[in-house]
């Protein structure tokens, strides 16, 4: 009888903790939309998302709230980080699962775990004092750039991409590999033509999740991208400074007076939230479809 009660209590607690996660997400969403949506509708979704000028505290005339340059900035930096992180991460994952001897695998995995533990501010500071001058002196520009943000984010995305792709590669049935090797394929052939295609969906999911994480990252990016709310000029110039949506919120939230300015920052949050949610949904879809086809 007592045992039943305690069991019920534990169950209730577990249920409460499960529900609380959902509840927190819902509450945050409600709050975000309550604060930002009225402004979004008033100012116009179109002119907000595609507006080119951000000038919330105008000296003369009307303030402008266009976040298009920041959407571009966020996407650029996230995509740029993948350019560095995907080849490195994938290579590392293949090495870990297929090639590395156990002692080396353990060592590398420990290193990757340490990488996760580095606070983003520390990475940002590292970027500010080392990477930015390095880019300025070797590639030109001011150093505060899309490139700098991408490299820092790549370092942060690397552990996630490695661990998810490594899981995907590990999940490829051992028989596939044995069959390939038995047919006389070399190790590299097997990796390229059997293992990678079979784990394709998991790797793709890792990439998309990595992109979602990168878009949401703030502190490190804020310190090295220069934060100018304008488009790169010309558009493909990765040495130009940009501002990301996250940086926009963090930089101005302290000061934004209640009213349009603050609501515009919440609206920025809504756009960001939507983008990350869509990326997560895509990655889940990819993972699911791959599970069905892969086995």
């Amino acid at each position, binding site marked *: 009888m007592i045992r039943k009660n305690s069991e019920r209590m534990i169950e209730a607690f577990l249920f409460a903790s499960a529900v609380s996660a959902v509840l927190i997400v819902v509450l945050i969403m409600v709050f975000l939309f309550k604060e930002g949506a009225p402004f979004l509708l008033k100012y116009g979704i179109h002119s907000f998302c595609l507006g080119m000028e951000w000038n*919330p505290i105008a000296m003369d005339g009307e303030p402008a709230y266009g976040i298009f340059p920041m959407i571009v900035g966020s996407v650029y930096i996230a995509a740029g980080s993948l350019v560095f992180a995907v080849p490195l991460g994938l290579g590392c994952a293949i090495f870990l699962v297929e090639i590395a001897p156990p002692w080396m695998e353990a060592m590398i995995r420990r290193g990757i775990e340490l990488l996760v533990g580095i606070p983003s501010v520390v990475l940002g500071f590292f970027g500010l004092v080392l990477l930015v001058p390095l880019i300025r002196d070797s590639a030109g520009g001011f150093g505060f750039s899309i490139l700098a943000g991408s490299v820092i984010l790549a370092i942060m995305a690397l552990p996630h991409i490695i661990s998810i792709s490594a899981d995907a590669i590990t999940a490829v049935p051992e028989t596939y590999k044995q069959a390939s090797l038995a047919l006389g394929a070399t190790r590299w052939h097997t990796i390229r033509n059997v293992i990678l295609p079979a784990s394709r969906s998991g790797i793709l999911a890792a990439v998309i999740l990595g992109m979602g994480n990168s878009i949401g990252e703030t502190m490190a990016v804020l310190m090295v991208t220069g934060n100018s709310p304008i488009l790169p000029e010309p558009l493909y110039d990765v040495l130009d400074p940009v501002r990301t949506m996250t940086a926009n919120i963090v930089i101005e939230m302290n000061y934004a007076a209640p009213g349009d*300015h603050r609501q515009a920052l919440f609206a920025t949050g809504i756009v960001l939230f939507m983008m990350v949610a869509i990326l997560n949904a895509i990655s889940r879809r990819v993972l699911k479809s791959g599970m069905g086809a892969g086995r």
Partner: protein
Amino acid sequence: MELQIIISKSLVRTNIILLMLAVISMSLFGSGCIDNTNNGAKTDDSLTDVKLQIAGSTTVLPIAEECARIFMENHPGSRIFVSGGGSSHGVMAVADGTVDIGCASRDLKSSETGAHPNLVSHGIAKDGVAVTVHPSNPVTDLTMEQLRGIYTGTITNWADVGGTDSRIMVVTREEGSGTRDCFEQAVMIPIKAEITDIGIIQDSNGKMRATVAGSDQAIGFLSLGYINSDVRAIRLDGIEPTVKNVLDDSYAISRTLWMITNGNPDSTEQAFLDFVLGDKGQEIVEDVHFIPIN
């Protein structure tokens, strides 16, 4: 036996949950309570039971926080709540009675004094904003015209202002920053121009200093207290940004930090203001990199 262990374990767990709930509810109610404290403060005369609410400029925040901490140590039983929110918030909050003292790192706007003629400003500190470059930069002197040219984006090469042939990296602070506001008031507003969008934006004095110290092409501006050997402050129209020149108003880019009360301060507000303006308070002002007012 086993049963008992399970029970006691689950009891421990529920205790932890209860504890967590208690902490959460306390923090929730705690923030609610603060709203009720200012009523008592208006009528209370004894300094042992001071209750004050202070909010506003994040520039003034370190002064207000440190003064509040030491004031509370000196007057056990007194409670002073300090929060940020920005200058505009500080002015609004003190005007509508949400807080007892509002903090602002800029002068009251005419719209604010118009709507709330009762507000009384008390200057508590001065601050100058120095234009800074990399120590290796040969430029030591700029005119206001040149500075305006650089910050509006019409002058883009150091050679145009007597330096080496290299692009100027304009570094500025984020919209809403008190330091930026002070700079704009003196440099940009008289010519009704906005700071160029091409500039790098850093969101604190510390990062601004690190940025300027890290690039020989950079120009930036810093609150006076943050100047050190990593960067060089340049003369503006021949006048050096020093404490003395800020105090006698000969240096152009300066501001006063204010604490604002609704009407003349009552006894508790006066006690706190006296403390801020007294020796210890002004020492704190200096400690957090501002210029004492007297």
